[in-house]
């Protein structure tokens, strides 16, 4: 169960990034024809990011303490004190942006409103960039555990 949760939450996070790129591209080409696709894509982003939060959060709350002890005793202790601490709290920013996305897509028409189009593109870009940073931080933390175990 522990390993499954550890593997699944970055996968759903990566799928959320892919869905956000989908929303970004649909917005760039916004028209009446892709309006429903845009809404579906934005809902998929919110759902996948919420699932990522629940799974990753459960793993963090229940299982992370053991890994934390290994990291703090190893050479890369900053992987917890800086990287993990930043990652676990930065995720809330990504989650809020992901929940905001379908609300804006539902109430605005980026095909007719330049301001709405810029807003959706900006939120999508912020989600992708922050989520990539979080994915990278996760890889960094995994390496820190490995280094801690090798010592």
């Amino acid at each position, binding site marked *: 169960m522990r390993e499954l949760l550890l593997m699944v939450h970055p996968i759903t996070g990566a799928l959320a990034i892919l869905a956000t790129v989908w929303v970004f591209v649909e917005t760039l080409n916004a028209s009446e024809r892709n309006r429903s696709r845009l809404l579906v894509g934005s809902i998929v982003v919110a759902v996948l990011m919420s699932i990522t939060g629940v799974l990753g959060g459960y793993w963090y709350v229940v299982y992370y303490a053991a890994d934390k002890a290994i990291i703090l005793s190893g050479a890369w202790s900053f992987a917890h004190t*800086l990287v993990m601490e930043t990652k676990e*709290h930065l995720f809330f920013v990504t989650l809020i*942006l992901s929940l*905001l996305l379908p609300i804006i897509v539902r109430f605005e028409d980026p095909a007719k409103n330049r*301001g709405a189009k810029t807003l959706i593109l900006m939120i999508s870009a912020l989600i992708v960039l922050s989520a990539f940073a979080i994915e990278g931080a996760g890889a960094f933390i995994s390496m820190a555990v490995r280094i801690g175990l090798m010592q």
Partner: protein
Amino acid sequence: MLNNSNSSVSATTTGFSIAAVVVILANTALVVAKETSSSLHDAMQAALGHHWTTQGVIVILAFIILGFVFAQLWPKREMNGTRVAFLLAGATIIAGIGLVWFFLFA
């Protein structure tokens, strides 16, 4: 067809976007507060079993409640979408840098 003169977004979009700006900045402020105040940290730990869980619930509830409140407070108020976009980007950058700075130097 894109209308350059029509860049205003609805009250709902404005309300929830401003709520997101407030919550994103407040999230970083709450991190600083709980990491520097052991009593707050312990209270959040006790509330839902883990301080991170409590913070997550506070952040999500605050976003939803403030979103509805802001949308209702200014039902006639529409903001330029580009302006809202840059407000969100600014808040996200400040909140991100704030988190890194705090855990790097605190």
